[in-house]
């Protein structure tokens, strides 16, 4: 139990995982995201981005103002396929009977 600090609850990423990424040379937020998997779960970084950015500032000595958030990915929140499937933006292929 001692010293285990979970920073990303969706993907179980700990402070130690972040330290390890930095030791490997993966020191910017996008690299740490990929190396640890933080921010790729259901919350898509909404919970963990701040704490991990703070940890990174401390570990690398970078000024917090220089750490930009990673690119946020659509959709805004987990969204069922059926809602997208009904959207008129969908391309219709030649094999679809109901193609316009």
């Amino acid at each position, binding site marked *: 139990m001692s010293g285990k600090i979970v920073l990303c609850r969706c993907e179980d990423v700990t402070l*130690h*995982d972040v*330290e*390890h990424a930095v*030791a*490997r*040379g*993966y*020191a*910017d937020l*996008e*690299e740490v995201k*990929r*190396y*640890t*998997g933080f921010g*790729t*779960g*259901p919350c*898509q970084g909404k919970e963990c981005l701040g704490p991990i950015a703070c940890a990174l500032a401390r570990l690398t000595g970078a000024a917090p103002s220089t750490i930009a958030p990673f*690119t946020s*990915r*659509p*959709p805004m929140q*987990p*969204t*069922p*396929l*059926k*809602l*997208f*499937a009904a*959207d*008129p*933006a*969908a*391309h*219709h*292929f*030649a*094999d*679809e009977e109901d193609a316009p």
Partner: protein
Amino acid sequence: MIDGDGDALEPDRGAVQATVSHEPLPASAEIVIIGAGVIGLSIAYQLARRGLTDVVVVDRGYLAEGASGRNGGGIRQQWSTAMNVRLMQRSVALCKEFATELGVNVWFRQGGYLFLARSRREVQRLEKNVDMQNALGVETRLIDAATAQDIVPELDPTGILAAAYNPSDGILFPWPFLWGYARRAAELGVRIHTHTPVTAIERGRPGFTIVTPRGRIAARRVVCAVGSWTPEVARMVGVEVPTWPIRHEICSSEPLKPFLRPMVAELASGLYCSQSMRGEIVGGVTLPGHGPDRSMASSLEFLATYARRLTRLMPVLRDVKILRAWAGPYDQSPDGNPILDHPPGLPDFFLACGFVGHGFMMAPVVGELYAEYLTGGERHELFAQSSLGRFHGASAADIAKEDFNLG
């Protein structure tokens, strides 16, 4: 911890060797590889394995920033040209050994690839490919819709005329592949400098000087492995490369209990999807009518089209939630085949581009063949067939066009 070298294996954190270097650039190298994507790193690792360790890899961004970090991780031997089938047979063999050899779990899973045909013409394409693949020793079978449904019970067989299934195709998780190549290459002496954009390449006698904001490197030879950015970099040495970027979108669902064994792909729409080892359904679809595009933006058109085709094919997924979507650049070549070897008149500058969205699966074998060639070994027939010169000479008609660049 993805790379499995956390606490248990490395109790002394101080012993962790940095994979990517933040030290000053070296003044010179035998080979500078531009591009730390999977192609560049595979070549770097294979060179180092053969004892050529005076190699520097530079990249404008970070590992996995470009197409190598944005693809679906598919690895297949079902192709329409014999060359690509043979190459991918070797790539699959290398993927099987990757985790052991590189000490990283890439979550490689051979669940097969299932290609679905919805028209007579598509069936004929599959038939032709299956015969050729079988002759080369790939065990692809042409099956009917009912048999496809035995493999994936969630499929709606309506409108499916036939399918091609090869059980030894598979998927892997792309990111650890890069870290694995990079880490072992670095351990062998290769220096990898990310966040180091090349702004100019000066021609020397012999060799080149690679110019970056972080310094200059004198290189005897250069390998240009920058995917869809190749035209810009090649122009720095006066070479015109006729490839162009195509934005390709992809998305990932919430994790589900494992149910989907193969990668499923539809010829009619370019729809493909697989279930990753994390349980997510990862997939994409072809969006017709889009020209060259350097953007990596996501679109509602993509999510709507993908969702429409996927829920039509597997209605049971209707309530599954999409977690995130992203995009990456395919490096489209005029004939769908890669461009390798040195351009005419520039014997020390080597191209590795034009993989049309399939560079990831080709990288293991391309790295091996390139390293063999660059260390004085065999020049595989692939290089003669893939030269830039084919687009300018009479030999253009002799190149077998690859028409199985799906998704």
